[in-house]
């Protein structure tokens, strides 16, 4: 980084590794004492090894790189550390590359030449490094919320909800009909009926029984009043209710000899209290 002359580099305030939450690859002298867990895959490991050659990636010795990688993997395996399969695949490929580089290309050999394989590896390393640099250049740009800011107090769109009312003609007519029907029944004047109040019934009963100590049927007392059919129910109900009250007060006795039979009443004797 920093050697490409891109204007953004002027804004770099922190080394690219600041954006990485994984520890940076260890320095060269410790390389044999770390496991591959610190690397983001075999290409990352290769890139790290290549950087140690301290030359531009175009000038690296791919043969030396392959040897370093294979040695590194061997060391790890000696220490019986589990090595992920992709590191082993890369090791196999690099062993192949090494053999292609060391043995001159035979005529009629259709396999890619060692130089071509080496160029492919170089390309991949350069591309990965380029993407890493790009990531760090992106992160070092003036970013929104870090050096550039949006409106701190945005004025959000206010949404006014306007109701559109829904009603069908049927709803309307139905609502009207229901109301008229409801209103129509209240238009009837209730039939006025003669009602004997309890007080009236009691007074009448008191008067009719008088001082009579004989059992007399209630209907016999009320004979004059029961003539009108419209009043029969209220006369019976009110006088019966009043008679119960008079019994409770100890003024009269009352008896009935059978269910639905006539009710007999008489004035209670004073001495029976």
């Amino acid at each position, binding site marked *: 980084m920093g050697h490409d002359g891109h204007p953004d580099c002027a804004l770099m305030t922190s080394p690219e590794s600041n954006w990485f939450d994984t520890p940076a690859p260890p320095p060269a002298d410790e390389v044999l004492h770390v496991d591959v867990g610190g690397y983001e895959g075999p290409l990352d490991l290769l890139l790290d090894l290549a950087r140690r050659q301290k030359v531009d990636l175009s000038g690296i010795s791919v043969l030396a790189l392959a040897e370093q990688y294979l040695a590194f993997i061997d060391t790890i395996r000696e220490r019986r550390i589990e090595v992920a399969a992709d590191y082993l695949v890369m090791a196999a490929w690099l062993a192949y590359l090494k053999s292609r580089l060391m043995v001159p290309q035979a005529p009629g050999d259709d396999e890619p030449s060692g130089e071509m394989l080496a160029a492919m590896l170089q390309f991949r390393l350069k591309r990965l490094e380029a993407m890493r640099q790009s990531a760090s250049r992106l992160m070092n740009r003036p970013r929104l919320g870090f050096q550039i*800011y*949006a*409106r*701190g*107090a945005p*004025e*959000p*769109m*206010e*949404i*006014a*909800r*306007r*109701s*559109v*009312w*829904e*009603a*069908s*003609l049927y*709803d*309307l*007519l*139905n*609502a*009207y*009909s*229901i*109301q*008229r*029907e*409801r*209103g*129509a029944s*209240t*238009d*009837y004047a209730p039939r006025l009926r003669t009602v004997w109040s309890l007080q009236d019934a009691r007074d009448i009963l008191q008067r009719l029984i008088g001082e009579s100590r004989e059992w007399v049927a209630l209907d016999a007392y009320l004979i004059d009043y029961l003539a009108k059919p419209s009043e029969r129910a209220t006369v019976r109900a009110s006088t019966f209710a009043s008679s119960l009250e008079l019994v409770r007060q100890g003024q009269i006795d009352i008896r009935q000899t059978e269910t639905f039979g006539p009710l007999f009443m008489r004035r209670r004797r004073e001495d029976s209290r």
Partner: protein
Amino acid sequence: MSPDEDDEIGDVLRRHLRILEALLFASAEPLRASDMASYLGEGVDVAGLLLTLQTQYEGRGVNLVRRGDAWAFRTAEDLGFLLRREEHETRPLSRAALETLSIIAYHQPATRAEIEEVRGVATGKGTLDLLMEAGWVRMRGRRRTPGRPVTYGTTDAFLDHFGLETLLDLPGLDELKGAGLLSGRLPPDLQIPLPFDGSLRDDEDPLDPADLGDPEPEDEET
């Protein structure tokens, strides 16, 4: 003062204004002059700069406004409509509104007291307001009786919404019975009025000029 010095002062002023602009823009809350002073250096006339900035934004789509001791950018008042959007929401009419509307339709011109007489319950002002807002009911005039109550009637939008050509298309008693909407158990004297479609009836006066503002302001929601 030499032109060079003048330029320099201009540059400093511009820089100060830029800083204030950015600070005010990025802040989530209105900023006090004293909050901003520390960004400008000592002895800078923040109040004066703010007034300059305010002038620069005068007449623009966004203005620098003062809120108490603090300052903030706000959308120009006359452009507030840009930040409002209407969303239409279809809702069924409430039973009370439907009942009131149907009574007004048949009994128009109808006063509120008349509506209440048919409904048997008091009609809230809100219900009439809603019907007027929906564009289905209007104030027609005032009844020429004591208290001069407002008379209500339906609108053309009402006819339009309910698919009626004229108010006379509203079904009468026999039709309502025929449709099963009215039962047979009705007193023989029950009548369905013929809605009055004209402009003003004999017993109606035109609305007072004041009516056009606020309908029946004396009436409160019951």
